C-alpha cells in the first residue's frame, strides 16, 4: 500500500518505522524539518519530502495522486484536517487518518465524514494514552490492559507473583481453581523470552503472563496470578499537560486525585476546568512537596509530563518516598526497557499505544484492531473472518484443525455479543471476530494470508 505520513515527530517517526517494515508498504514522509528527514531516511527504507504538509504542491511531489492512505500526524490539528481535506478534494485519496488532539473538534461527530471535514478516522494519541493509563489504574497489578471487540474482551499483561494460587501450578489447573470462569493464557514471557503456553506449563514467580478474558472475568483471573491489590483510591499525577489533565478529569469522580503542574498559569487553567482534583503548583521532583502531599500513602503515582527524563526521575523519587505504584510516560523504547526492570513499575510508551490503532487501519480490511506489544516485537490482532467454508481456510473448521504459524495463539472468538474463549473443539463461523496473539510479528504475513483465504479475490 502507498502511504504518506505527514509530520516526522515522535508519532510520525514511529509510524514510519512500523509501517515501512511491512514489505507491502511504500512509505513517504513529509515534514518541514530537513535534518530530521535526512536522519530518518538514513535509517528507514522510505522516501522523504521536505515542505509544508498542507501544501498541494508538496503533497503532489510526494505522489498523493496514487496514494492509498494519508496519515496526518503533524503537531497541528488544523494542518492535519486541512491536509486530509485537500487530499480528498483534489486527489480523492481513499483513506485519510488524522491526528486530532483537541476535544473541541473530536467531541463533535458531525464535523467529520460525509458533509464535514474529509477525515475518515481521527486518532488522538493523548486520548488513547489517557484511556490506557485509566485502564491500568482500574486494574491494579496489570502491566497492560488492551481492549478487543469494543471492550468485551480484554488482553491483560500481568507479572505473576508468589501468592497467586496459580503460581507454581500447571496451567490446566486454572479450570479447577475457577470453574465458572473461562480465560486463555496467550503468551508467557520468562526473563524476556517467550515460552509456549501449554496445559503442562508451570507459571513461576516473575513471569509476564498475557491472558484473554471477558471483561467481567478479568479480576478473577488476575487474582490467580498474584495476590489481589486493593483498588486504587489515591492518585498523584505529575504534569498537567494534555494527558495529565484528561486523566485527572476521568479519574476524579471515583478517586482522590492530586495533580502537580510546574507552570503556574497552566496550573490555574487546569484547576478551573477540573472539579474535585487538588491542583498543586510545583516541581514533581521536589522531595518536600511530595512528602507534604503524603506521597507515601498514594496508591499510584503517574509521571506524565512532556519530558521523559523528568518523568523517570520523579517516578523513581516517588517510589523511594513510598508511593505504592509508579508509572512513567516514556518515549524512547530503550529507556522503557532500562527502567521497567528497575524501580519504576510501568513504563507507558505513547507510541506503542498509538501505533496499534494506526496499524489496524493500514492492514487488510479484515483486521479491525491491532495492539503492538513488547516494543513492537509482538502483536495482538482482532480479525474478522469473512466468506464461507468453501473459500476460507478457517471457516467451518474446528480450532484444533487450523494450522497457525509458529508463535501464534488463538485466544478468543467473539460471536455477536458472546465471548467464547478458544477451545480446541470450537468451530469458526462466518463473521466471527478472532483474537490472536503473535509472539513474533515476523509471522504476521502468514497470519494475514491464512485469514484472507480466497475471499479477497472474489
Amino acid at each position: 500500500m502507498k502511504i504518506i505520513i505527514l509530520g516526522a515527530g515522535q508519532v510520525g517517526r514511529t509510524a514510519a518505522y512500523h509501517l515501512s517494515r511491512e514489505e507491502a508498504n511504500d512509505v513517504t514522509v513529509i515534514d518541514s524539518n530537513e535534518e530530521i528527514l535526512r536522519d530518518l531516511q538514513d535509517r528507514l527504507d522510505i522516501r522523504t519530502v521536505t515542505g509544508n504538509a498542507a501544501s498541494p504542491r508538496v503533497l503532489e511531489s510526494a505522489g498523493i495522486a496514487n496514494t492509498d492512505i494519508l496519515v496526518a500526524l503533524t503537531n497541528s490539528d488544523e494542518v492535519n484536517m486541512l491536509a486530509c481535506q485537500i487530499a480528498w478534494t483534489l486527489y480523492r485519496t481513499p483513506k485519510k487518518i488524522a491526528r486530532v488532539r483537541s476535544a473541541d473538534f473530536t467531541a463533535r461527530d458531525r464535523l467529520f465524514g460525509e458533509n464535514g471535514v474529509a477525515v475518515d478516522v481521527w486518532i488522538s494519541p493523548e486520548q488513547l494514552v489517557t484511556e490506557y493509563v485509566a485502564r491500568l489504574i482500574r486494574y491494579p497489578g496489570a502491566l497492560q490492559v488492551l481492549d478487543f471487540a469494543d471492550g468485551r474482551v480484554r488482553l491483560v499483561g500481568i507479572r505473576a507473583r508468589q501468592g497467586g494460587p496459580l503460581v507454581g501450578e500447571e496451567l490446566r489447573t486454572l479450570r479447577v481453581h475457577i470453574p465458572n470462569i473461562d480465560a486463555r493464557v496467550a503468551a508467557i514471557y520468562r526473563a524476556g523470552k517467550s515460552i509456549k503456553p501449554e496445559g503442562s506449563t508451570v507459571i513461576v514467580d516473575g513471569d509476564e503472563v498475557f491472558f484473554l478474558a471477558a471483561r467481567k472475568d478479568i479480576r478473577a483471573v488476575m487474582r490467580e496470578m498474584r495476590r489481589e491489590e486493593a483498588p486504587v483510591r489515591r492518585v498523584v499525577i505529575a504534569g498537567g499537560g494534555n494527558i495529565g489533565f484528561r486523566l485527572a478529569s476521568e479519574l476524579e469522580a471515583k478517586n482522590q486525585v492530586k495533580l502537580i503542574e510546574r507552570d503556574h498559569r497552566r496550573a490555574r487553567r487546569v484547576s478551573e476546568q477540573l472539579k474535585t482534583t487538588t491542583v498543586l503548583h510545583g516541581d514533581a521532583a521536589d522531595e518536600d512537596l511530595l512528602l507534604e502531599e503524603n506521597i507515601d500513602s498514594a496508591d499510584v503515582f503517574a509521571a506524565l509530563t512532556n519530558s521523559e527524563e523528568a518523568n523517570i526521575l520523579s517516578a523513581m523519587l516517588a517510589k523511594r518516598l513510598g508511593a505504592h505504584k509508579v508509572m512513567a510516560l516514556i518515549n524512547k523504547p530503550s529507556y522503557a526497557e532500562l527502567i521497567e526492570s528497575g524501580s519504576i513499575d510501568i513504563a507507558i510508551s505513547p507510541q506503542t499505544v498509538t501505533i496499534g490503532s494506526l496499524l489496524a487501519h493500514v492492514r487488510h480490511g479484515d483486521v479491525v484492531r491491532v495492539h503492538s506489544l513488547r516494543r513492537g516485537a509482538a502483536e495482538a490482532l482482532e480479525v474478522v473472518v469473512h466468506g464461507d467454508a468453501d473459500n476460507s481456510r478457517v471457516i467451518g473448521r474446528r480450532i484444533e484443525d487450523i494450522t497457525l504459524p509458529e508463535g501464534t495463539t488463538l485466544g478468543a472468538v467473539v460471536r455477536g455479543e458472546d465471548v467464547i474463549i478458544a477451545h480446541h473443539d470450537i468451530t469458526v463461523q462466518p463473521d466471527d471476530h478472532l483474537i490472536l496473539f503473535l509472539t513474533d510479528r515476523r509471522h504476521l504475513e502468514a497470519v494475514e494470508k491464512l485469514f484472507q483465504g480466497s475471499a479477497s479475490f472474489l
Partner: protein
Amino acid sequence: MKDTLLPVAHVFAMVIMVVAVIMLAPLVLAIWGLDPALWAFVVSAFATFVIGALLWLGTRRFKRELKTRDGLMLVALTWVALPAVAGFPLWSYLPIHFTDAYFEATSGLTTTGGTVLSGLEFLPRSINLWRHLLSWIGGMGIIVLAVAILPMLGVGGMQIYRAEMPGPMKDSKLTPRIGQTAKLLWAVYAGLTVCCILSLRLVGMQWFDAVCAGFSALSLGGFSNYDANIGHFDSVPIELVLSAFEVLAALNFATHYLAWSQRGVRAYFRDSEAKAIFGVLFISCFGLAGFLLFKGIYADFPTALRYASFNVISIATTSGLHNQDYSLWPTFAPMWMIFLSSIVASSGSTGGGIKMIRTLILAKQANRELNQLVHPNLVRPLKVGGSVIANRVVFAVLAFVFLYFMSLASLIFVQLASGLDFITALSAIVACINNAGPGLGAVGPGANYGVLNDFQTWVCSAAMLLGRLEVFTLLVLFTPTLWRK
C-alpha cells in the same frame, strides 16, 4: 576491523555469486559457437561461484544489518575487489598478466573503455561479450543491481545507493522503496539498451556487433569488437544511432523515467542539466567542425561535422567510442574534447567526470560571489533549475572538486615520474578518471593502454576506480575513523 569487514564480506560474497551467474551468458555463447574460450569460462564461472559460496558460508556467523559505514565499505570493497574476479576469464584465456586483466576488467566495470588488448576482431566472441557485459553491468552500478535483485540488502540500502550513484544530491528517490527505485532505473537502462541494439541492427550491424555496441553506448563504456572501433563500420547511420543513444545515456536516468511515466518530453526541458548538456554539445560539435574545416583537415563541412560530432559526443559523454584517430587533429580539438569529458555527463547517468550539475552549481556560486562584490548586502540563494541548492551541497561540491583535481594532479605527477611523456600522462589520467577511454599520445585512439608498464597500468586502474566512485567513496577507505570501533 574484524567486526566491520566480515559482515560486509558476507554481502560481498553474494555479489560475487551474482557475477558467477552473469558469467553464464558468455559461457552459453561459447558453447553455442564452440569457441576456444569455453573452458576459460567454465573454470572461471565455477571458481568464482565456489569462492563466493565459501566466503558466504565462512562469514555467515557475522551476518547482521549493515550500518552506514558498512554500506560505504561494501561499495568500495566491491569495486576494488570485483575486477579481480571479473578479470578471471580474460586472465585464464588470454596471454596477459594479472595486471592487464585487472585493468581490462576495471576499464569495463567503470565504463572507461580503454583497453590493453589488440587484435580485438580475432578474440573469441565470448571474450568480447564478457568485456561488453562488464561495461553494461558497471554502467548502472553493480551494487544498484544487487539492491534491485537481492531483497536482503534492505535498510542501509540508501547509504549503498548514495555511495554508488553519481551526483551531489541523492536524497530524492523515484519511489519510497530503495529496491524498487533500483529496479526502475535498471528497467529504464535495459529498455534503452534494447532500443539501441534494435536500431543498430536496423541500420545494418550484425546481431553480435549490435549487442556489443549497444552495451558500449548505453553504459558509456567504449569497448569495441574492432581495433578501429566504430571506424571499422564506416557508416553514417550507425554513427548517428550511437551518438543519439550516447547523449541519452549521459542524461539523468531519473529524468528518462519521469519522461516515460509522463509520456512526454517535458521532463527533459525541466532538467537544467539536460539543457546545459544539449547546449554544450551543440556548440562544440559545430565549433569543432568549423575549426577542422578551417585548418584544412577535412575538405568539406558535412565530412568535418560527421567526424567532429561523433567523436565530440563520444568523448564528452565519456563513452570513448571513436571513428577517427582524432589525436592527429590539431591539439586544440582533442584537448577540448577531453576537457568536455570532465564536465558534460549528467548526475544519475552512466557517465563519469565532475558531472554537469556540479559544474552548474560552481558556476552559479562563482556568479554569486561576483555579485556579492558589487552589492555587499545582496541576499541571493543559489538556484539551479528553479530550486534552491543548500549551502551544505555547495560545500560538498567544492570539497569534491578539490579532491578530484588533487587526485588528478597527483596521479599525473606519478605517471610523469614513472617516465611517461606529458601528453600521454595527462591524457591517460584525465581519460581514466573521467571514465572516458582513449587518451592521446601513446595511449591515443590509434593505439591502446598495452604500451604502459605494470606500474603505470595499476595507476590507471586506480584512477578509473577513483573516478567511478566519485573519489569520496574510495578515499573513505583510507580514513582511520572508518576502521575505528
